[in-house]
């Protein structure tokens, strides 16, 4: 098929359509920096979605649970072995993204006779100082996007754009505490959730037109058969490992 370029491109496009259709209804994930670290937040239905990868690196993803698990293990194994063979300080997100994950995603996506990963991944790395914090999103085709203060992954680009737009209007930099970050994260999640329930053409409209009351309603409905999950990489954590999942009591303080 590779010696027939048109058919190859067509096959790739079919594959892209199939994966995006699978990802469209995935529960979005929001990543935000705050005054004492970084938080990843989503609302899930039982399956855990936020994970510790290494001392200062956390991961979340949307997609097929089996693919998330396989790739989570790949990055966890790689980071663990690198941290042991060299030093834990030598493990960094740039190396994991560019030398391990991105090419694995791309290779699987473009090997059209093999299985593709149905996944979008978000990784967070707590820097030695606030300005060195990094959020990295890796798309199922291996494309990488990096941000320093906030990021989102959602089922489609339109959903992500809507969430980013909301963050841009509501956010005032990283000078916020954990509770404020959780509140902003939940509201942004609600925007993504609302957009994912619309028809694709509607979701692409620039007007999200959701007020705070609607956001809170969306969050409360989602909590009826789901659970808010949030993990932090916090500078105040004792010891080398900076990750922990927030308790339900901590999350409670930010709920509408």
């Amino acid at each position, binding site marked *: 098929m590779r010696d027939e370029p048109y058919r190859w491109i067509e096959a790739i496009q079919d594959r892209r359509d199939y994966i995006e259709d699978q990802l469209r209804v995935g529960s979005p994930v929001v990543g935000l920096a705050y005054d004492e670290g970084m938080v990843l937040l989503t609302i899930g239905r039982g399956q855990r979605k936020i994970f510790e990868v*290494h001392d200062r690196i956390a991961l979340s993803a949307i997609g097929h649970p089996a693919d998330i698990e*396989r790739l989570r*293990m*790949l990055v*966890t194994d790689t980071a663990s072995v690198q941290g042991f063979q060299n030093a834990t300080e030598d493990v960094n997100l740039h190396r994991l993204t560019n030398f391990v994950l991105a090419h694995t995603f791309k290779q699987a996506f473009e090997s059209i006779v093999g299985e593709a990963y149905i996944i979008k991944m978000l990784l967070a790395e707590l820097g030695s100082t606030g300005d060195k914090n990094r959020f990295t999103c890796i798309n199922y085709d291996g494309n990488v996007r990096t941000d320093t203060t906030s990021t989102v992954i959602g089922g489609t680009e339109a959903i992500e754009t809507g969430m980013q737009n909301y963050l841009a209007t509501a956010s005032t930099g990283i000078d916020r505490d954990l509770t404020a970050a959780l509140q902003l994260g939940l509201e942004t999640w609600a925007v993504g959730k609302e957009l994912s329930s619309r028809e694709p053409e509607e979701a692409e409209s620039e007007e999200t037109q959701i007020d705070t009351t609607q956001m809170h309603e969306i969050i409360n409905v989602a909590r009826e058969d789901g659970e808010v999950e949030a993990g932090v990489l916090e500078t105040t954590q004792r010891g080398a490992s900076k990750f922990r999942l927030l308790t339900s009591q901590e999350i409670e303080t930010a709920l509408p």
Partner: protein
Amino acid sequence: MQGFMNHKGDFLNLLKQKNYPLKIELPSETRQHGADIEIAHSTTVVAVRYRDGVMIAGDRRATAGTSVIYDRAEKVLQIDRHSVLAISGSPAIAYEIARILEHSFQYFRRSQLQELSLEGKLRMLSRLIRENLPMALQGIGGVIPIFALYDLNAADDKNGGKIFFYDALGAHFENVNFATTGSGSIWIRGVLRYLSRFGDTPLQEMDARQATVTILRLLDTASEYDAATSGYNARAQIFPNVKTVTRTGVEDIADDELEQCYAEAQSDAEG
């Protein structure tokens, strides 16, 4: 992609898959006749159960033969938030064991999404010590550690602190109130037994201050009789490593607090 389906959370297997050399291969001549080299060892490490958990301490001297080669060695090593390994024997192997142990516990937690159980931690250390047996038998790589931890699942706070002692083959034994190992341990084991059984305040009922003063006196006693154990070096301000393992985690006792405790220990002695 090799190894990414390792779902057992076994860090040793993962290292083997990545061809990390866990064992040191010695030349056959050395294997037959033993090594004619001086390996740094000798120590006193001691752990006691006190009111809040376990206090564990080690002197700072590293020796090779009759030479002192280092006087700031760290022999009490934090493994995770609630466990500590105190090492005696060959430092090179002991540090490697501590490092593998630390990474193994972390790897299990990160890959399996739960903490390794107390039994699992004990068995992991047993396995590492047993894998080191060939080195121990050749007389150049023996390691006899004390493993102390706080069991968050214990029925009450009084029983949370736990001390485990290992032999060279990897068997572990729970020491109820105290454990000591290293070349200086023979001088204080009887004292520990006496304090635990007949002391005015039994070890397990001491508060942190009392336990610190006691443990410093024990190390002082060991250093008096064992050339390979250092005491408190006042001129260079070098104190033993003293850590506590309690419900809130592992903490170092700071040097200024140790200095005050030393003053208390010495003033009582002079009085």
